C-alpha cells in the first residue's frame, strides 16, 4: 500500500474508532479461548511489511503457509481417521471393520493403559484397566487378531503409543510380513513422541536419554526398511488437552519437533534422510480463527527453521504434515448433544487450516468411550464438511484476510518468544526438568477453569443457557469379562510358544540395550517369537531404568 493510501486508511480508521467509542458493547471479554485479546477490526495497517511471496507463497511452495500440497483438497480429501480401540483385539477389530464400511479412510489405534505403560494384562498394575481406555495388546497374537481381514498395504494405520512405541510398531510390521506384505509397502504412523509425555500426557516409561535412543533407532530403521512410515507424530494435542493456550501448544510442539531433529542429527543421520517422515498432531479447539491461524503459523515456522537453522534441502523436510483431533476438553458432560455442534466447528477449523487427516470426537466421549451411533455421527460430520459445505473446493480461502494474517503473525511471534525462553533455560530437557512447561500449562488450565466458574467464559449448557434435564444417552459398556479372557489367552500363549527362543531373544535384547546397536531388529525378532510387550519392557527397564516426575500443581 502506498503512503498516501495508507494515510487515508489511517484517517478513516480514526474516525471509525471515534464512532464506535460511543457505542455500547457486550459485557463478555473479547478474547480468544486462550485469553488473547481480539481487536474489533483488522485493516491493512495491521499488516505493515506484509509480503505475499515471502509470508504466504503458493500452496505446495515455501513457506507453505497456505498448505503443503499444490492442489490440497481438490486432489484428495483429507484422511478421515477415527481414533478407536476398546476391549480386546476381537472387539476392536469389529469396530475397525465397521468404520471402514462406513467410509472411513484410515485406522487409528487406541491402546489400553497397561499397553501404553508397558504392562501385560496379567500384571498387578493392570488390574481394572484392561481394555478400558483402548484395546489390550500383549503380543503379536493380539495384533494379528486386531488386523484380521484388514489389508495393511491398502489401509494406513496410526498408533497412539509412545513409551513402548518400538515394540508395538514391530508387532505391526511382523503382522504385515505374516500377511505377506513387504515392509516397503506398509504405511502409517507411530506417535512415538516422548517429549510431550514428559510435558503433558505423562505416559512415560524410560528416562529421556534411552527414550530418545529408541526414537532415533525407529527413524533410522524406517528410513532403510519402511520408507512410507511416519516415524513420529509430534503432538500438541495432549499439551492443549492438559490446559495450554493455542500459542503454547504451537510453541511447545514445534520446540519438541526441533529437539527430535537435533537428536537425529546428533545420532549421525542426515537431516533430509529422516525429516521427511516426521509428522505432527494438533488439537482443534473451539476458537475458530485462532485454530486456523495456529496451523498456518505452524507450517511457516517449521519450513523457515528447517531451512534456515537445520539446513534441510529436500522440500519434503520443510513440509509440515499434520493430523488433527477436535478438542476433547471442549466437550461437556451436560447436554452432550451440543458436543456434535462443537465438534463440527472445530473440524471445520482443521479443514480450513489445511490438515492432512482428521479425527472428530463423538458427543459421548466426555462420558465414556463412544458408541457406534455416536462415532458414526462424528464421521458423518467430516463427510458433510468434505462433500456438502463446499469448503474443500478452494485452497486456504481465508488467506489474505487482514484478521487471519494478523493473528497468524501474532501466534508466530508468541511462539518465537517461547523458543527464546526455552533456549534461555538450556533447551527442552532442561526446561522439562525444571517444570517450565508443566507449570505454564497448569497456570493456563487453572485460569481457564476459574474463568468458567466465574462466568467470564461462557460454556453453553453449563454456565449459560442450561436446562436441568438429566442426561439421557446410551453409553458403551466394556464387557467385564475382557480382563479375565485376555489374561487367560495370555497364559495359553505363554504355554504354547517356543519359550527357549523367547528367552534367547530377551537375553540378546538385554545385551544390545546395554550397548549402542539399533534395537529395532532385535525387538522385531523378539515379537516374532511371541515375546510379550511386558517381557520386553521389563528387560529394557532393567537396563534403562524408569522415569519419575516431581509432582507439582
Amino acid at each position, binding site marked *: 500500500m502506498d503512503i498516501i493510501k495508507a494515510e487515508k486508511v489511517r484517517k478513516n480508521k480514526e474516525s471509525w474508532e471515534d464512532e464506535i467509542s460511543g457505542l455500547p458493547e457486550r459485557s463478555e471479554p473479547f478474547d480468544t479461548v486462550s485469553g488473547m485479546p481480539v481487536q474489533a477490526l483488522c485493516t491493512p495497517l495491521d499488516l505493515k511489511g506484509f509480503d505475499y511471496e515471502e509470508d504466504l507463497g503458493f500452496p505446495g511452495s515455501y513457506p507453505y503457509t497456505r498448505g503443503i500440497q499444490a492442489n490440497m483438497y481438490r486432489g484428495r480429501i483429507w484422511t478421515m481417521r477415527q481414533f478407536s480401540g476398546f476391549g480386546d483385539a476381537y472387539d476392536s477389530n469389529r469396530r475397525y471393520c465397521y468404520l471402514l464400511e462406513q467410509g472411513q479412510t484410515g485406522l487409528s489405534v487406541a491402546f489400553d*493403559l497397561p499397553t501404553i505403560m508397558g504392562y501385560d494384562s496379567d500384571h498387578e498394575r493392570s488390574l481394572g484397566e484392561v481394555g478400558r481406555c483402548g484395546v489390550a495388546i500383549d503380543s503379536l497374537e493380539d495384533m494379528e487378531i486386531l488386523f484380521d481381514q484388514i489389508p495393511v498395504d491398502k489401509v494406513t494405520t496410526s498408533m497412539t503409543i509412545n513409551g513402548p512405541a518400538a515394540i508395538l510398531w514391530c508387532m505391526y510390521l511382523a503382522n504385515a510380513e505374516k500377511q505377506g506384505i513387504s515392509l516397503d509397502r506398509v504405511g502409517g504412523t507411530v506417535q512415538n513422541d516422548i517429549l510431550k*509425555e514428559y510435558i503433558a500426557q505423562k505416559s512415560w516409561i524410560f528416562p529421556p536419554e534411552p527414550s530418545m535412543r529408541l526414537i532415533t533407532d525407529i527413524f533410522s530403521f524406517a528410513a532403510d526398511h519402511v520408507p512410507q512410515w511416519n516415524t513420529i507424530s509430534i503432538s500438541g494435542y495432549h499439551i492443549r488437552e492438559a490446559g495450554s493456550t493455542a500459542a503454547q501448544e504451537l510453541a511447545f510442539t514445534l520446540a519438541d519437533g526441533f529437539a527430535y531433529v537435533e537428536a537425529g542429527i546428533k545420532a549421525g543421520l542426515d537431516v533430509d534422510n529422516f525429516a521427511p517422515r516426521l509428522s505432527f498432531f494438533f488439537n482443534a479447539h473451539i476458537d475458530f480463527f485462532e485454530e486456523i491461524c495456529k496451523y498456518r503459523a505452524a507450517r511457516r515456522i517449521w519450513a523457515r527453521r528447517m531451512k534456515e537453522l537445520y539446513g534441510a534441502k529436500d522440500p519434503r523436510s520443510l513440509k509440515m504434515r499434520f493430523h488433527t483431533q477436535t478438542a476433547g476438553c471442549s466437550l461437556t458432560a451436560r447436554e452432550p448433544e451440543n458436543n456434535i455442534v462443537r465438534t463440527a466447528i472445530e473440524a471445520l477449523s482443521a479443514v480450513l487450516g489445511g490438515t492432512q487427516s482428521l479425527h472428530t470426537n463423538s458427543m459421548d466421549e466426555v462420558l*465414556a468411550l463412544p458408541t457406534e451411533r455416536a462415532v458414526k455421527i462424528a464421521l458423518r460430520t467430516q463427510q458433510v464438511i468434505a462433500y456438502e459445505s463446499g469448503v474443500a473446493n478452494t485452497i486456504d480461502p481465508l488467506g489474505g484476510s487482514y484478521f487471519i494474517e494478523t493473528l497468524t503473525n501474532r501466534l508466530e511471534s508468541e511462539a518465537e518468544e517461547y523458543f527464546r525462553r526455552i533456549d534461555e533455560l538450556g533447551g527442552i530437557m532442561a526446561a522439562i526438568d525444571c517444570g517450565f512447561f508443566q507449570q505454564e500449562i497448569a497456570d493456563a488450565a487453572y485460569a481457564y477453569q476459574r474463568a468458567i*466458574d466465574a462466568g467470564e467464559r461462557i460454556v453453553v449448557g453449563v454456565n449459560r443457557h442450561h436446562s436441568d434435564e438429566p442426561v439421557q444417552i446410551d453409553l458403551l459398556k466394556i464387557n467385564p469379562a475382557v480382563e479375565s479372557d485376555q489374561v487367560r489367552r495370555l497364559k495359553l500363549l505363554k504355554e504354547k510358544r517356543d519359550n527357549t527362543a523367547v528367552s534367547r531373544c530377551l537375553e540378546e535384547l538385554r545385551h544390545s540395550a546395554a550397548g549402542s546397536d539399533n534395537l529395532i531388529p532385535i525387538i522385531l525378532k523378539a515379537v516374532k517369537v511371541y515375546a510379550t510387550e511386558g517381557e520386553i519392557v521389563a528387560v529394557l527397564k532393567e537396563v534403562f531404568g524408569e522415569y519419575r516426575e516431581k509432582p507439582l*500443581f
Partner: protein
Amino acid sequence: MPGRKVRVLVAKPGLDGHDRGARVVARALRDAGMEVIYTGLHQTPEQIAETALQEDVDVIGLSILSGAHMTLTPRIKGLLQEKGLGDIALVVGGIIPEDDAAELLKGGFADQVFTPGDSLDKITGCINGIISSHRKS
C-alpha cells in the same frame, strides 16, 4: 482439633496420566485455605493408603479418568478400613458414568463423586461440608 486446617490428599491412582483435573482441583483447594498434598501420578492403592496414613489427612480426593474407578475406589476404601482409616472422607472425580457413581455412593465406597462440569466452588464447598459433618460426629 478445632481450627486445624483441613488436610487433603489429592491422589492419582491407576495408570493414566490425565492430571489436569487433579492439579486444578489441588490448587483450588489450596486457594480455599486447605493444606493439600498431591501424590503425583501412577500411584497404587497401597501407596495412596500409606500416604494418607503418613500425612494424617482428613480427606482423600481420587482423580480417575481411566475407567478403572469401579476397581480402584473400593480397593482404596478397603485398604483405608484395614488401616483403621475408615473415617477419612473419600471423594472421587473423573469420567464416571452416572450409574457407576450411584453404585460407589450406595456401596459406601465414596462420600461424593464429581464429574466434568462440576465447578471448583462446588467441589470446595462439598468437601468443607463433609468435613464439618465428620467433625461434629
